[in-house]
């Protein structure tokens, strides 16, 4: 995909792709959106494994309005999900859209409260990304986002950990028994310090490869179950919204996105638990 980009008043042809282009558009004038998950894994040169794009957004009204306008210009429509509105995003809900771009189905997913990232860590995330083009989450943040209920994400975490330069981060995220054994020999004090954060590290000093691999498997299953439980809570809270959705989809079908959004918000206030405005 080649498109013309205005750089200092000059029309320059840029080789890009739809997710980088969208990120540019979301961040026109100021930083509002940071690429995360699958497309961030590409930008870290880990692997290309996801055809959808997702972004962490700044949690403010202007960002939501701007992103909706960009998506409307692309002809996007809402998929089942929360309205792109801070009343729901602040509660951890995600918003989902889809459109066609040159015959390709493009899906875009958004949240402002990324899973497993504490709220008081978010200002640092935004500060770190200021001025970066494209902005995308760092390896340690990506590894935490990837602690999902999908097996394939743990291969990405394993690969990320092997690319991390910081020993503490390697110890936090490594999925390799051999690497952990080596790190334990090289950095025993650091291992002791991080055990509280990652209990598995208690078995890597002097543990056999088999024991460490067993512990890694058990740790992965705990993280998978934790994320399944997290999603089950959202699923349960979205019960009435899910029931109402087919009727709502009929009403908003064919509407420009901003109009569809207004309808969605009105109904979400009745059917989807959010925070106070």
């Amino acid at each position: 995909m080649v498109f013309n980009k205005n750089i200092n008043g000059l029309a320059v042809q840029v080789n890009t792709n739809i997710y980088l282009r969208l990120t540019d558009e979301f961040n026109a004038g100021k930083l509002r959106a940071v690429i995360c998950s699958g497309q961030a894994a590409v930008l870290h040169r880990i692997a290309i494994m996801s055809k959808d794009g997702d972004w962490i957004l700044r949690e403010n009204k202007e960002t939501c309005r701007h992103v909706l306008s960009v998506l409307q210009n692309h002809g996007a429509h809402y998929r089942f999900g929360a309205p792109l509105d801070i009343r729901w995003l602040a509660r951890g809900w995600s918003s989902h859209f889809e459109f066609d771009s040159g015959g390709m189905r493009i899906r875009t997913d958004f949240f402002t409260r990324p899973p497993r990232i504490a709220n008081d860590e978010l200002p640092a995330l935004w500060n770190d990304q200021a001025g970066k083009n494209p902005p995308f989450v760092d390896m340690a943040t990506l590894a935490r986002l990837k602690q999902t209920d999908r097996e394939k994400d743990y291969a990405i975490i394993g690969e990320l950990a092997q690319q991390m330069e910081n020993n503490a981060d390697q110890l936090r995220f490594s999925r390799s028994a051999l690497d952990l054994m080596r790190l334990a020999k090289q950095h025993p004090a650091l291992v002791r310090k991080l055990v509280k954060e990652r209990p598995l590290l208690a078995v890597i000093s002097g543990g056999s490869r088999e024991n460490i691999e067993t512990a890694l498997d058990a740790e992965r299953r705990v993280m998978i179950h934790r994320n399944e439980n997290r999603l089950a809570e959202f699923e349960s809270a979205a019960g009435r919204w899910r029931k109402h959705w087919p009727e709502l989809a009929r009403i908003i079908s064919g509407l420009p996105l901003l109009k569809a959004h207004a309808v969605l918000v009105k109904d979400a206030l009745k059917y989807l638990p959010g925070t106070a405005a």
Partner: protein
Amino acid sequence: MKKNQTDHFLSEEDVSIRDMDWDELITWWNLWLEQAQVTNDIDQHEYSHGVFRHEPPCPVKNKARR
């Protein structure tokens, strides 16, 4: 970290993007995205990110006007 004597998580093909220059990466990325469209019917109602897993059955295919 030394790369010999370690565990491997992805195939050589996956990690080959490490050696590409920016234009090669973008070209490969776009090609991959195009090829991945063949699974659109399979994952039509699924979510890969966020807090939802499946779309509810819906008689209307949602579309929007620009």
